[in-house]
């Protein structure tokens, strides 16, 4: 089914056009063109913006701002974003990574959206023309978002500060059984002083493992130290069931993989 595409040089004009019923924003096309190809009749036209800021990566010290149209491939090869390269390469195959955008990934339904899991652990903010909101707030209400996402901002973790794991049945590219990202800070004695743990496929969108985060505080990253966190890793989760894995299976293996990530 062919659909009209409107291209605007500014986000402001694209936002105005996006108000029309049935109009969807076109980023890399891996979600919305796919939906149209599958016969999603709620899509009647596409809008996109070519505003240069949408495709720009800015790194100032440890502060990073990524335009929403930046692709996974661009993130993976950026010399200052090595900490995120692993998470960016977890998305699709080479062709998908050349197309899929960081903005689009925020809207990817489970079992997709692995990069957003990393952004959630980083405590990123999501920018629109209306301002910035914490990513957790954005994800909770993403269906009701009607403003074009323009950028993602976050602070780079210190070396090794972002741990990321995508579990899939097919290597090197496969759909997620689950994905986990963790940003940990440790005191000089090795005890965890701060923990942000994000999970993919353990709900209909990426979520924080807050019980596990709390249980890790003050603990060392040893088998005994992380045991209380693993025991509560599934608290509050509501995993999806799909052809890749059942909800039961995802809950069963989550502590195993979280343990491997924390002890790595």
């Amino acid at each position, binding site marked *: 089914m062919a659909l009209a*595409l409107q291209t605007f040089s500014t986000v402001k004009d694209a936002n105005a056009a996006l108000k029309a019923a049935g109009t969807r924003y076109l980023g890399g096309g891996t979600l919305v063109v796919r939906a149209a190809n599958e016969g999603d009749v709620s899509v009647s036209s596409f809008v996109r913006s070519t505003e240069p800021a949408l495709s720009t990566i800015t790194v100032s010290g440890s502060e990073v701002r990524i335009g929403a149209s930046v692709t996974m491939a661009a993130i993976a090869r950026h010399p200052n974003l090595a900490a995120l390269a692993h998470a960016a390469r977890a998305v699709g195959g080479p062709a998908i990574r*050349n197309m899929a955008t960081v903005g689009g990934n925020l809207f990817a339904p489970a079992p997709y959206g692995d990069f957003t899991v990393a952004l959630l652990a980083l405590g990123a903010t999501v920018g629109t023309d209306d301002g910035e909101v914490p990513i957790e707030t954005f994800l909770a209400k993403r269906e009701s978002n009607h403003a074009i996402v323009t950028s993602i901002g976050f602070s780079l973790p210190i070396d090794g500060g972002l741990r990321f794991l995508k579990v899939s049945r097919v290597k090197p590219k496969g759909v997620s059984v689950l994905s986990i990202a963790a940003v940990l800070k440790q005191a000089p004695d090795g005890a965890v002083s701060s923990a942000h743990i994000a999970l993919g496929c353990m709900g209909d969108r990426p979520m924080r493992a807050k019980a596990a985060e709390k249980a890790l505080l003050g603990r060392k990253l040893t088998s005994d130290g992380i045991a209380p966190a693993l025991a509560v890793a599934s608290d509050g989760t509501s995993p999806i069931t799909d052809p890749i894995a059942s909800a039961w299976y995802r809950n069963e293996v989550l502590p195993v993989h979280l343990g491997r990530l924390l002890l790595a």
Partner: protein
Amino acid sequence: MAKTPVQFTLNGAEKAEFIDSGATLLNALRDKIGDTSPKGGCHQGTCGACSVIIDGELRLSCLTLAETCNGAAITTTSGLSQGGVLHPLQRAFLDAFASQCGFCTPGMIMAAKVLLDRTPNPTRDEVVEALSGNICRCTGYEPIIQAVLTAARSNSQNAA
């Protein structure tokens, strides 16, 4: 449906067509321009059969709107042979029996071409990674991997 003018370079030749607004590049190439080498497999971005090279990057023509390719340089497998002489990748696929039903072959060759253009002497792992977005249900992949490695060696010998 409104028609939209689209102009790009396909395998080195200028192309200008009026296409349906919102048409995918895959449909434009196959139905309007007559290049049927990109195949429509899943139309979901999963199988890689529609892979083409746009401005040096591997992309999926089933998820790319043709209008977004204005001014771009597009390469498809149909443009690889020169004067009736097969491209080394095409030759290697034939010799290694890396093509059985043939449906995935054009996409595989596009993915392999991007790899060899950037990494003339790839490792086996690099070949596997480069082909990871392309599905083949016939060969079991090993003949395809060997074909790409053979083409890389052939290129290196020709360059020496």
